[in-house]
C-alpha cells in the first residue's frame, strides 16, 4: 500500500514548507469564515429584531467589509500555494520521466508504443495537477476549518454542534468507499488513454501502408473503438463522482434540515434561544458541510490523480527494472581523447537472446586489432545486426562481455565510447531541423560551417545541398523536405565525417543505393576508415574482399572467421554466397 502513493507523497515530503503555509492560511480562513457569519448574523439581528439605525451598525458593516477582504485574500493564498505546489511537483515528476527516457537501454526504448509513452509524459502528469492544486489544499482546509466551525457552534449552541459532530463522519466514510473505486477506474482510464494514443500514432506512421492495403476503415474503427473506450472509462469515473456528490448532498441536506428543525423547536417551543444565535448556526452549518462536501469532490479528483500517478510510476518502474546501471558516473579521461589510436576490441563468450528462446546469439571469441577492417557476413537473420549492436554497446549481452582496450564496455563510460565511434545504421533517423543541424548531430564539439561543408563534401552530399534553394538551412525530417534512402545514408556518413571516429560501424552501408552513389560512398568510407577500425555488416563482395578478417555468421552463431581466401577454401556456405554474388542477383 505504501507504493500506491509513493510518487505523490514523495513530492509532498519535498515541499513541507508549502504545506505549513497551507495550514496557516487554512486556520486564518476558518477564523474569517466564523467572523463573517457572526457579523452577518449580528447585523441582521440588529436591523431586523432590534430595529437599530443604520448609523449605529456602520462599525459592524465596516468590520464585515474588512473580514470579507481578508477571507478572499486568504483563500487566494491557499489557491495559489496549491498551484505552486502542483507546478513544482509536475515539473519534478516530468523531469524524472524524461531522465528515465534517455537512460533507457535500447531495447526498452524501442519497445512499447511511442504514443503511449508520450501520453504518459503529458496527459498523465497533467492529471496529477489536481492532486496538488485541489486535493491537498482542500485536505488542509478540511483538517482545520470544520474544527473551528464546530468549536464556534458548540460555543453558541451545543445541541447543533452534536448533530454536526454526529453526521460528519458519514461523509469521510462514504468518500473512502467511493474513492477506492475511483482510483481503479482512473488507472483503467489512463490505460485506455495510452492505448489509444499509441494506436493513433502508430496508425499515423503507417498511414500509407494502411491506405495501400485498404485497411483505413478498419483502423478508423479501431481508433473509434479505443476512443469510445476512453469515453466510457471517463464516464465511469464521472458517474462515481456525480453519485458521490448526490449522496453527499443528501447527507448534507438531511443534516442541515435536522439542525434547522432543532433550531426552530428551540426558538418556538422552548423559546430558549435568540434569533442571532439561531441565524448564526444556520449560516455556519452550510459552511461546515460545504467544506466537507468540497473535500469529497477534491478527494475524488485526488484519487483520479492517484490513478494517473500509478501509470507514471509504472512507466518509471519499467525503467528501474531494466535500467539499474546508472550508478557509477566515473569517466576515464584517456579513453575520450580524440585522434588517438583506434582501440583493440575483444569479445568473450557472448550470449544474447531476445527472451523468446527462438534465437540465441553466441559468439565465443573475436579479437579486433586497432585499425583492422572487419566484415560480418552471413544470411539474413543470422544475427549480424544484433551482434553489431552488442559490439556498439547498444545492447547489453546476457552473459559475456565486449572489451575495449581491455576494459569491459559498460554504460558507465558509454558516453566517451560513443564519442570515439560512429555507427551508421541502415535507416538513420533524420531529425526535424535543418540539414546543418542534422549533420552537426554527429559530434558534440563546436564545429564551423567550413567543417560541416567539408563533411558533406566527403559524404557526397554537397552537390545535393548546393542545389537546394536554402542550402544547409533546408528543413528536413518531419515537417520538412523528405529525403530519399540514399540521401539519408549520405547524411549519416556526413555525421560520421564530422565525428572523425576511431571505430566505424557500418550496417550494410552500401545497400539500397544506386551505383553512382555507392561508388561515392565506398570512396568516402575508405577515406573515413584510413586510421580507424572498420566493422561492416557487408553483403557486397567488394567490401568483403577488402576486409582483413571476415566473420561468417549463421543462425546466431559465429561459424568461422578468416580471410577471403581461407574461407573460400574451407567454408562451403561462404563459397556459395560468393558464387551467387559473382553471377549476380536474381535471374
Amino acid at each position, binding site marked *: 500500500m505504501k507504493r500506491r502513493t509513493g510518487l505523490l507523497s514523495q513530492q509532498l515530503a519535498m515541499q513541507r514548507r508549502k504545506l505549513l503555509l497551507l495550514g496557516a492560511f487554512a486556520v486564518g480562513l476558518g477564523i474569517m469564515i466564523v467572523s463573517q457569519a457572526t457579523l452577518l448574523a449580528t*447585523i*441582521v439581528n440588529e436591523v*431586523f*429584531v432590534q430595529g437599530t439605525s*443604520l448609523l449605529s451598525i456602520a462599525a459592524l*458593516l465596516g468590520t464585515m467589509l474588512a473580514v470579507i477582504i481578508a*477571507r478572499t485574500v486568504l483563500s487566494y493564498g491557499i489557491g*495559489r500555494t496549491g*498551484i505552486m505546489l502542483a*507546478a513544482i511537483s509536475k515539473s519534478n515528476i516530468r523531469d524524472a520521466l524524461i531522465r528515465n*527516457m534517455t537512460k533507457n537501454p*535500447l531495447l526498452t526504448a*524501442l519497445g512499447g508504443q511511442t*504514443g503511449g509513452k508520450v501520453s504518459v509524459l*503529458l496527459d498523465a502528469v497533467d492529471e496529477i495537477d489536481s492532486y496538488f492544486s485541489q486535493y491537498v489544499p482542500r485536505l488542509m482546509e478540511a483538517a482545520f476549518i470544520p474544527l473551528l466551525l464546530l468549536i464556534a457552534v458548540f460555543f453558541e449552541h451545543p445541541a447543533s454542534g452534536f448533530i454536526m459532530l454526529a453526521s460528519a463522519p458519514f461523509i469521510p466514510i462514504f468518500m473512502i468507499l467511493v474513492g477506492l473505486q475511483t482510483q481503479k477506474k482512473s488507472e483503467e482510464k489512463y490505460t485506455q488513454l495510452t492505448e489509444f*494514443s*499509441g494506436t493513433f500514432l*502508430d496508425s*499515423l506512421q503507417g498511414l*500509407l*501502408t494502411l*491506405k495501400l*492495403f485498404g*485497411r483505413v476503415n478498419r483502423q478508423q474503427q479501431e481508433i*473509434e473503438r479505443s476512443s469510445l473506450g*476512453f*469515453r466510457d472509462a471517463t464516464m465511469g469515473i*464521472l458517474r462515481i463522482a*456525480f453519485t458521490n456528490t448526490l449522496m453527499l448532498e*443528501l447527507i448534507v*441536506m438531511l443534516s*442541515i434540515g435536522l439542525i*434547522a*428543525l432543532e433550531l*426552530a423547536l428551540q426558538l*418556538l417551543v422552548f423559546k430558549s434561544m435568540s*434569533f442571532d444565535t439561531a*441565524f448564526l448556526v444556520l449560516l455556519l452549518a452550510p459552511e461546515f458541510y460545504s467544506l466537507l462536501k468540497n473535500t469529497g469532490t477534491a478527494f475524488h479528483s485526488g484519487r483520479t490523480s492517484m490513478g494517473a500517478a500509478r501509470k507514471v510510476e509504472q512507466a518509471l518502474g519499467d525503467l528501474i527494472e531494466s535500467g539499474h546501471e546508472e550508478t557509477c558516473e566515473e569517466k576515464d579521461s584517456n579513453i575520450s581523447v580524440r585522434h588517438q589510436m583506434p582501440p583493440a576490441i575483444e569479445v568473450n563468450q557472448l550470449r544474447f537472446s531476445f527472451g523468446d528462446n527462438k534465437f540465441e546469439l553466441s559468439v565465443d571469441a573475436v579479437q579486433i586489432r586497432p585499425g583492422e577492417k572487419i566484415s560480418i557476413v552471413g544470411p*539474413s537473420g543470422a544475427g*549480424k545486426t544484433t551482434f553489431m549492436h552488442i559490439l556498439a554497446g*547498444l545492447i547489453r549481452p546476457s552473459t559475456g562481455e565486449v572489451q575495449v582496450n581491455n576494459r569491459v564496455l559498460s554504460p558507465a563510460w558509454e558516453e566517451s565510447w560513443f564519442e570515439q*565511434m*560512429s*555507427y551508421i545504421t541502415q535507416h538513420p533517423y533524420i*531529425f*526535424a531541423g535543418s540539414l546543418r543541424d542534422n549533420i552537426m548531430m554527429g559530434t558534440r564539439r563546436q564545429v564551423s560551417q567550413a567543417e560541416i561543408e567539408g563533411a558533406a563534401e566527403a559524404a557526397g552530399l554537397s552537390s545535393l545541398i548546393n542545389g537546394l534553394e536554402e542550402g544547409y538551412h533546408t528543413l528536413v525530417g518531419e*515537417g520538412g523536405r*523528405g529525403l530519399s534512402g540514399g540521401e539519408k545514408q549520405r547524411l549519416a556518413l556526413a555525421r560520421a565525417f564530422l565525428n572523425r571516429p576511431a571505430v566505424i560501424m557500418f550496417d550494410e552501408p552500401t545497400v*539500397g543505393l544506386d*551505383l553512382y*552513389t555507392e*561508388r561515392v560512398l565506398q570512396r568516402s568510407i575508405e577515406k573515413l576508415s584510413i586510421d580507424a577500425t572498420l566493422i561492416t555488416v557487408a553483403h*557486397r*563482395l567488394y567490401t568483403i*574482399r577488402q576486409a582483413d578478417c571476415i566473420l561468417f555468421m549463421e543462425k546466431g552463431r559465429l561459424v568461422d572467421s578468416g580471410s577471403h581466401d581461407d574461407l573460400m577454401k574451407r567454408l562451403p556456405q561462404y563459397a556459395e554466397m560468393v558464387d*551467387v554474388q*559473382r553471377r*549476380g542477383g*536474381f*535471374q
Partner: protein
Amino acid sequence: MNERSILTQTLFQEKKDIAWAIIGGFVAGIGGVSLFAASGYMISQTVFSPPLYTLIILTSLVKILGLIRAASRYSERMYSHRATFSLLSRIRSTFFVKLVPLSPGLFNKKRSGDLLARFVGDVESLQHYFLRVAYPPIVLIMVFLATVLFVSFYSIWMALIFIVGMLITTFLIPSLILLGQRRNRGRVRLQRAQLSTEAAELLYGFRDLKVYGQLKTKEMELKQASTKLVDDQYMAARHLLRGQTLHVLLSFLVVWSVLLLGSFLINNGSLAGVFLAMLVMAALTVFDEAGAMAVLPVYKQDSEHAAQRLEETLHSGNRIPTVQKHRKLDDNLPVAIDISGVSFHYGDDTRPVLGDINLHIPAGSKTAIVGSSGSGKTTLFELLLGLYVPMSGQIRLNHLSTEELDEGSIWRAANVVLQHNHFFRGTVRDNLLIDASGYTDEQLTSVLESAELLNKSLDDLLDERGENWSDGERQRLALARSMLRGGRVWLLDEPTSSLDSVTEHRIMQRLLASASRDTVIIISHRLAGLEDWDQIVVLDQGKLVEVGSFVELMERKGYLYEMRKIEQQMIHVDR
C-alpha cells in the same frame, strides 16, 4: 468564424442530451436559490412565533427543494458529460479520417508528436467548450433573471444591485482575466505540443541520439520544454484563480451591499425586516452559481483556439481532396501502363522531380527501373499508385487515367513493397493479414517460407514499426505480405536491398514464378541479374534516359553500359 463550426456542428448531434442538461441545470439553479431563500425566510419567521404547522410546511418545502436540486444537478451533469465525451470521441475519429487523404506528404508539413498533442490534448480541452461555454450561460441567465424578478417584488433597488453585480461578473472580471492572458493566448497549448513533439522525436530517433551522444542534449531540451510548459500552465492557472477570487470577493460585496441597502430600507420602513435574511441568502446562492460566468470567456477563447488548431491541421494538405472517382480498375486483369508526358514536383518545391516521362509498360511484362539516388524512381511509383497527381501529362492503367480512377481500386490491384515498410505492433499474423483477407494459418506459414522467414512463427511479436526485427527480416515480411495480396501489378521498390544475395535470389525466383502472368515493376539497385527482364528503364535526375532490353542497352553503350562497367569494377575486382 470557421473554427467554431467544428464545435457547433458536433453540438447539434447531441442536442437531446444538451436540452436535458439545460432543463436539469435550470431546475437545480432555481431550486438552490429557493432553498436558501426559503430557509432564510423560515428562520426569520420564527421571530414572530408562528403556529408550528407553518414551520413544518416551510421545512418540508425546504426539504423538497433540496431533493429536487440534488437530483436535477445529478441529471444535468450526467447528460452534459455524456454528450460531451461522445462528442469528443466523434471529433477524434473524424480527425483521423480527415488526416488519411493527406498521406503521403503529411509529415512534410506536420510532426507526429504535434499531431498526437492535437489528437489527444486539444480535443480533450474542447470539453470545456461543451461543459462550460455552450449551454451553462443559458441556464445561468435564466436562473438569474428569475431571481431578479423575485427580488424586484421586494425592492427595485435591490434588484438593481443584483444586476450590477451580474454585469461585473459577466463582463468586467473576464476582461480583467483576459487582459493578462492575451499575451500568452494559447501558449500552454503550443508548449504542450512542443513537448509532445520533442518527446516523440526522442523516442523515434533514440538509437541515433544514443550513438551520437546527443541524448543528454535532448534531455536538457525536453526538460526545458517541460519547464516552460509548467510555467505557462502555472501562469494560466493563476489568472484563472485570480478571476475566481475576484468573483468570490464580488459576490461577498453584493451580499454586503444587500445587507447595507436592506438595513437602510428597513430603517426607512419600505422593506419588512423579515425578508432581509431571505434576500441575503438568495444573493449568496445566486452569485455562487454565477461563478461559471466569470471564467467562461477564458474557456471560450481557449477552446476556440484548440478548435482552430484542429481545423488548421485538416486544411494544410498539399493535395486538394479529390472528387469522388467512379472508374474502377478490373483486378482480374494484368495491368498495362501508359505514361505520357508526365511531369511532377512536390508541393511548394519548384524543382521538377520528374520531367516529361513517356513510357509504355505492356500487361504481364517485367520492367526494372534503375537510376541514381534522387532520380525520381520512387516518385514514379507514387504517381502510379495515384498517391499524387501529375502536374502535367497522364498515366493510364489499362487505358483508364489515374485522375479518373478510384485510388482504392488501384491499391487493391497492386502488390506493393515500399522502401520503408510500416509494421504495426502485434503478431506476425496480424501484420500479414493487414488487409483482413481470409487466409488459413497453413497458407500464411507457407508464404513465410516463400519469403525465407523460416525461423519466424505467426505468433511472433513485432514491436512498433517492427523495430525488434532486422531490416532484412522486415523486407522479407513485406515481401510475404505483398505475396498474399493477389493483385495483378507488382510495384517493388528496392525490395531486397537489405538481403544477402543468396536469400534475395531464392525469394525473387519464387516471386517471379508466381507473378509470371502479372505486370511486375521493380526498382533495383543492382544491375546484375537484370539480363532477363523484358524492359529496363533508366532514370537520371527526373529524366528518362534509356529504355530497352538489357542486351539492347548494352549494345547502345549508353548510361546503363557505363553503370554496368562501374559495377563490374566493384564486384569483379578480384578477378
